[in-house]
């Protein structure tokens, strides 16, 4: 486990870019942290690092957004999922097994579905910046 401190959104994006270098196809990264803790911001950096050129927007409303970088990037956001049965029809497991990288915000709402190989990233406010913990 590694712990980082970022002082601005730009630094969080940079950390995401560097973290992206270790990601490969079929990796599943789960993000935990309160509203405004920087999950989407870090994912902007990761997607950029994976070669996505488009603007990465919050997928809270649409739940899943697919981007094409060097590999497919599946940006998933379970913020609006309040009951497990609401996940029906989204076929999350299929995304986990697809030939791309899955980045999941509010992952705790699908905890039991996450594969064993999931990399966990926890974000929290620390002063004017963020404390970011990246798992193995």
């Amino acid at each position, binding site marked *: 486990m590694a712990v980082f401190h970022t002082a601005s959104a730009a630094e969080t994006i940079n950390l995401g870019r560097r973290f992206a270098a270790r990601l490969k196809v079929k990796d599943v990264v789960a993000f935990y942290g309160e509203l*405004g803790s920087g999950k989407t911001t870090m994912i902007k950096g990761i997607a950029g690092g994976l070669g996505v050129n488009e603007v990465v927007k*919050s997928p809270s409303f649409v739940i899943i957004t697919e981007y094409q970088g060097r590999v497919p990037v599946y940006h998933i956001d379970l913020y609006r999922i*309040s009951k497990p049965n609401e996940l029906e029809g989204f076929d999350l497991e299929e995304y986990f097994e697809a030939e791309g990288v899955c980045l999941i915000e509010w992952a705790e709402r699908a905890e039991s579905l996450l594969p064993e190989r999931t990399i966990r990233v926890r974000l929290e*406010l620390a002063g004017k910046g963020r404390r970011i913990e990246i798992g193995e």
Partner: protein
Amino acid sequence: MSEFCLGIETSCDETAASVLKDQTTVLSNIVSSQFVHSRYGGVVPELAARAHIQLIVPVTKAAVEAAGLNFSSLSCVAATCAPGLLGALLVGLPFAKALSYSLNIPFVGVNHLEGHIFALRLEHPQLSPPFLAAVLSGGHTELLEVKGWCCYRQLGSTLDDAAGEAFDKVAKLLGLPYPGGALLEELAREGKPTIRFPVPLQNTDTMDFSFSGLKTAVLYYRRDHPDARHEDIAASFQEAAISEVTNRITRAIAKTDLNTVGISGGVASNQVLRDRISLLGKKYGFRFLVPRPEFCTDNAAMIAAAGIERLKLFGPSRLNIPARARSTLADNSV
């Protein structure tokens, strides 16, 4: 002879159906959240394709009945094909295609964002392009030049959160239930905008939007001022968010020379926003248009309105057009 167009919308949480007579007369406008409430007593529709599957037939039947028609009197059927939740789109779209096939009437696929623009025409039948349109909802934030019906130029878009999403999430930070955008507006009415939250992207010349930094500013403020009145925080956030919207509209007017501005989408129901843009219109000399609230939020009347126009301009859509989760109006190819 009159045309009767059935519109079907299932791009997100609402299952909606509507029958339009000719271009702008709404004969019925059924939206599942209200429909389920009155029929089954307060069951909130859940976020699942399954809910759409359960509702699509009764909602569509109710729309045709409320219009005083039979299915056989319909002259075309339009449905949202993009953008939205794929699983949700894949209920309404095939349903509409099947209906068109079985009734032997034209089918038209409609972009959801285009529907929001046609909501303006439902409210203002005399409206004609060019005009500036801002679609401000829970899932979308788009600033567009409407050059002609079904002909658009994208001027700006959000770089992170949608406008409605920002209202809902800040409402959540203030302890209101989700989605709390409308409740936040109520709370703000009891407060004063005493806190100066930074207006995102103010010192640039972009026509894009950003709401993520504003959300973080509210988060910091709450942490550092635990005793601050939520009413004042709500009013101050709303002030900054609305300033961002009016700032972008002013920029777009200066750059395009358009003299009509229309806003739609759920956030367009916000009264403070309406009043502010209306004032701006008096100052800069543009006409300001906004649909009534039931045409602002997701509905199928706007989809039928866009569908009728598309049918007139381009003819029917093919029955094999796909549902797409993402689509802008710039690459509108439906």
